[in-house]
């Protein structure tokens, strides 16, 4: 018996954690609430903790098709296209990164492709701050006519996601005992069949987790997207950033609506990752 009587320590700990959670979650709460408020309630004093007349008008405004407008000192930003653009570049970039990266991770884990230090070299790419590569990228992209294109941004996201994918997939591939693959090969399975019937099912959860993880990263990436796009391609973080200072763009409701829409997938995917991570490692019951 380590603890007797009143559990003082857990109580203190939970109080502190709750307080900290309140501090971090409050801005998000405020954003979500504001997104459902009429214009009159945005900046009232005393503040209204709940919208007294909840409305979807902010969402309707930002989600109507068309291009962004700027009138009467207020800009109305439309985000249907940015949502699409974000889905395209984050989705395709993350998908290709997962396909390529898991192949690389597998070949390194099983055949030592590229030598012992290969994964570390790859990781060092990730240690370069994005600001350092942003400007050189512009130079290259001008030459290659990739500036402000989907292909360009997809390539950039592919390159920045690959190190994460390789490192995460390395862990998942190494969880699969090599004897399973050997057993299948002795039974006559080709290398492809071994990948399909043994490796893929056992790393499927890992693939999902890895995809979600890099998708979230790419979905919220701002700096490279800002530098390498202009008018043709515009992701959600760029659009959020377009809200000007309080002087010009006091359009808090739509801004909050966009923020909420941008945050939602990140939260949902975050929970999905947790669920899959547990599943991913539950095969640890393998006899070693």
């Amino acid at each position, binding site marked *: 018996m380590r603890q007797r009587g009143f559990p003082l320590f857990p109580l203190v700990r939970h109080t502190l954690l709750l307080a900290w959670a309140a501090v971090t979650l409050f801005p998000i709460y405020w954003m979500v609430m504001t997104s459902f408020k009429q214009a009159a309630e945005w900046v009232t004093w005393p503040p209204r903790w709940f919208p007294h007349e909840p409305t979807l008008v902010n969402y309707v405004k930002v989600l109507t098709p068309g291009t962004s407008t700027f009138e009467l000192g207020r800009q109305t930003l439309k985000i249907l296209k940015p949502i699409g653009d974000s889905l395209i570049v984050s989705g395709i970039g993350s998908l290709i990164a997962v396909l390529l990266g898991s192949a690389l991770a597998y070949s390194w884990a099983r055949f030592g492709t590229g030598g012992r230090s290969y994964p570390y070299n790859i990781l060092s790419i990730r240690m370069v701050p994005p600001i350092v590569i942003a400007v050189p990228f512009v130079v290259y992209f001008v030459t290659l006519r990739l500036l402000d294109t989907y292909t360009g941004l997809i390539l950039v996201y592919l390159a920045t996601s690959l190190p994460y994918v390789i490192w995460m997939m390395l862990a998942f591939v190494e969880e699969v*005992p090599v*004897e*399973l693959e*050997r*057993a*299948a*090969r*002795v*039974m*006559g*399975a*080709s290398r492809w*069949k071994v990948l399909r*019937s*043994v490796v893929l*099912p*056992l790393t499927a959860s890992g693939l999902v987790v890895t995809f979600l993880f890099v998708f979230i990263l790419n979905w919220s990436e701002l700096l490279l997207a800002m530098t390498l796009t202009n008018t043709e391609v515009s992701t959600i973080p760029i659009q959020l950033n377009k809200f000007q200072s309080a002087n010009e763009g006091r359009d808090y409701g739509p801004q909050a609506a966009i923020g909420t829409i941008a945050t939602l997938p990140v939260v949902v995917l975050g929970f999905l990752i947790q669920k899959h991570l547990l599943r991913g490692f539950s*095969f640890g*019951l*393998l*006899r*070693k």
Partner: protein
Amino acid sequence: MAGIRLQRLGKVFGATRAVDGIDLTIPDGEFVVLVGPSGCGKTTTLNMIAGLEVPTSGDIWIGDDRVTDWEPGDRSLGMVFQSLALFPHMTVFDNIAFPLRIKRVAPAEIERRVRAVGDTVHVGHLLAKRPATLSGGEAQRVALARTLVVEPSVFLMDEPLSSLDAKLRVEMRTEIKRLHGTLRSTFVYVTHDQAEAMTMADRIVVMHQGRIQQVGRPLEVYGNPANRFVAGFFGVPAMNFVEGELHAESGGARFVAQALGLSLPGQRLGSGPAVLGVRPEHVRLVSAGESWPAAVSLIEPLGDATLVFLDYGGPSSLVAKVDAEEKLAVGNRRSFTFRRDRIVLFDAATGGRLST
């Protein structure tokens, strides 16, 4: 049905010579056990036969085919792994059906054969389960069933019983041997456990440092070891070794060691440093004849026999395996001798066998 032939087979990993050019012929239908301490090259040899490792040198023949560079799946062999390697994401049925599906056997036929082999090794009631929910013995049988279902002509087994508890291991040992009796296929079985090797093998191949030390029937290897390594590897407790000198005498030789000397009439062995080996069961407690005095320093009753540690004045004590009925107590002074016909002598420097 197929025999196996290894020709100057070698495997080098970096600077390590894992298998150092071995020659071995395994006739069709024989149960051969490769045995040796870990790192002796036995598993590497097995993996090369399976095609999972590519030999650095030499050739492998299965039946009449030179299979050295064949894919593992083309060699028509079955293999049971140390970890059993059951696919955790498949049911027992799917595990056993896996090799049949690769060979594109018709579904009805798969169903029939999986059930048949499941009944043979008593896993019929487990077919719907997942490997993670099986006991050690059940998993073992499923791994066996998955190998049996394709009726391979050669069975390779890499320490398949090492994950089982002692009692189950003895049971499965018998079962595998019985299986071999029914199938009459060629079995190549790798283990570090000398008891498994002794009990299961038609022939034992003792390996050490990538080389074959001795090939022979179990009792041959036990009673007539080719060198000191083989002599020390088999037997529990291990053979007693006494270091001394050999002197040539008229009509024979004489072995002299600290507090111990015996003449070996009729043996022409030359002179020089030598090691005498005698198994505990060949050390006798006697009251007359040529013998040496010793004090009993420890007694270990095994039930069917008793181990007696004898301090005779040499650098270490000798172990004798005596009748359990023998009345003994620590501190007793007794005389002991050796069964002369079972003594073996080794060259002290090379460990090679000296006596004829």
